[in-house]
């Protein structure tokens, strides 16, 4: 009797989970379905699960449409996401290592100064940051889109926590061998810290690819649009070409889904190690 109850409970839970999973997948399915449908099919009141014909031509039309520089915006996003990821990893890991391992009288004070910026909501600094970037003459430049985002206190914090727990014996051996801080870092520490680089890198990459407010504010010329800004311009335009819009959105999440599925494990470990609890 009890056994049957337990089994029934288990089956019920599984059924609910499957239903929820389908619900969570619906938006992805709609993206794909509409992206491969004709405009008439998308807006047809006779709604079908599969479109009558898969319209791969949408992809050609999207890239041939000169009113929205979609190819350019994809390239911009790729450049920005890669540069931001590499730059953040370099700067934040060096800082995190210095804070964790190089003895210095004011190290704690510097660390609190860095940590303090996490308490300042980005919402509050976006107006003044715009002012700063515009006075540097960096509006509508890739520099303006990349450089201000390179200094992530969150990434620095994760690296510091990770290096604090790093086995000291490895570095001691290196010091005995006469390596200074610089070479110890590059030859011993970095190769042994690949998991945390992968975790932070993935999170930074996703954030850079998906970020919207900053690129919207800084990328005023079409030549500096990112994918998100281009997509947004589609949805707020006078005339909306729905099939192009959906195929553009589907194309825009493809690289992310690949990165995400490959590195998902690292994000999970990164989240667990970020010390937020």
């Amino acid at each position: 009797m009890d056994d049957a109850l337990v089994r029934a409970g288990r089956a019920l839970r599984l059924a609910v989970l499957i239903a929820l999973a389908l619900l969570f997948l619906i938006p992805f399915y709609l993206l794909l379905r509409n992206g491969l449908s004709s405009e008439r099919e998308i807006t047809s009141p006779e709604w079908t699960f599969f479109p009558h014909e898969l319209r791969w031509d949408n992809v050609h039309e999207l890239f041939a449409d000169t009113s929205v520089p979609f190819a350019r915006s994809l390239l911009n996003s790729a450049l920005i996401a890669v540069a931001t990821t590499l730059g953040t990893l370099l700067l934040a890991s060096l800082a995190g290592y210095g804070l964790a391992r190089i003895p210095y009288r004011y190290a704690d004070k510097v660390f609190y100064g860095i940590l303090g910026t996490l308490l300042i909501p980005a919402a509050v600094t976006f107006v003044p940051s715009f002012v700063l970037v515009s006075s540097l003459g960096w509006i509508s430049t890739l520099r303006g889109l990349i450089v201000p985002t390179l200094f992530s206190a969150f990434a620095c914090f994760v690296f510091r926590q990770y290096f604090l727990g790093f086995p000291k014996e490895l570095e001691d051996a290196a010091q005995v061998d006469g390596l200074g801080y610089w070479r110890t870092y590059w030859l011993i520490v970095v190769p042994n810290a690949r998991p945390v680089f992968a975790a932070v890198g993935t999170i930074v990459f996703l954030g850079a690819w998906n970020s919207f407010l900053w690129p919207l504010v800084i990328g005023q010329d079409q030549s500096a649009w990112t994918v998100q800004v281009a997509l947004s311009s589609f949805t707020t335009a006078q005339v909306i070409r729905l099939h192009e819009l959906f195929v553009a959105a589907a194309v825009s999440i493809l690289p992310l889904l690949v990165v995400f599925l490959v590195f998902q494990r690292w994000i999970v470990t990164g989240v667990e190690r970020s010390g937020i609890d």
Partner: protein
Amino acid sequence: MKHRSALWFWVFVGPFAAGLALFTYVPLLWSVGLSFFDAQNTVTPTHFVGLDNYTAMLRDDAFRDSLKTFLVFTAFIVPTTYVVSLTLALMVNRVRWARAFFRSVFFLPAACSYVVAALVWKMSIFSGVRFGLANTVLGWFGTDSVAWLATPDPPWYWLVLITVRLWLQAGFYMILFLAGLQRIDPALYEAAAVDGARPGWTVLRHITLPQLRATSVAVVLLLVVNAFQAFDEFYNLLSDARGYPPYARPPLVYLYYTALGQGQNLGLGSAGAVILALVIAVVTVAQARWLKLGRTDADG
């Protein structure tokens, strides 16, 4: 030797610290400065106006409405996401079959941008016309179509705003809860079973939830901080070529239009940002107090 390690410290930390100072502290001070000047269409103002920008902002009904929007939005989204992500974590944690699959499916939306999600919500699920998924489903039950985003009374647009954020972020917080659940000592559950506690609500209330307290505090803090930053989905769901409807404009959207829109009033925008910062500080401190109080109550 001491001297040399100080030098190396700055070699490692210096570039990062300098950049952070330049792109966070400098703009912050600049903004506070600008907020005391009349700075329309310029970043080097000369006309000092004292607190005028602040009083103008506080008297502005639209700005006050935007603060109200944000408070109501936070009051909705924080508990909803908390319950949904905790429920998902509890279910995924206990399921034996295809656990990794379920975890991935619920986490997958975290890879999606607000822009893309808003697009699917606005143009496909909650589209006001016949071909929207929500209205198609309503049609099966013989109910009339609803103009989801254009109906402020009853606030149907609210359902669209809440569900899009819920879909995007629930999986991420589920991961945090899953990590927390992994750390609970199984011996606690065994002891409870010996004491005759039936699995279910009692165990959840007396063991699981108290053990998850640290995670819960972090989750609630992150949820509130993220709700402050709400911009992407409001902007992409509600604005179109004709402009932006007056309802449902959170502070960030409002500041965007004030400081960088047609008026380019950077002084006023900066004053708004400073006010927003103060409101956020008050809410955060109040909430930290409240969460800490909860902890001593439970322990005592």
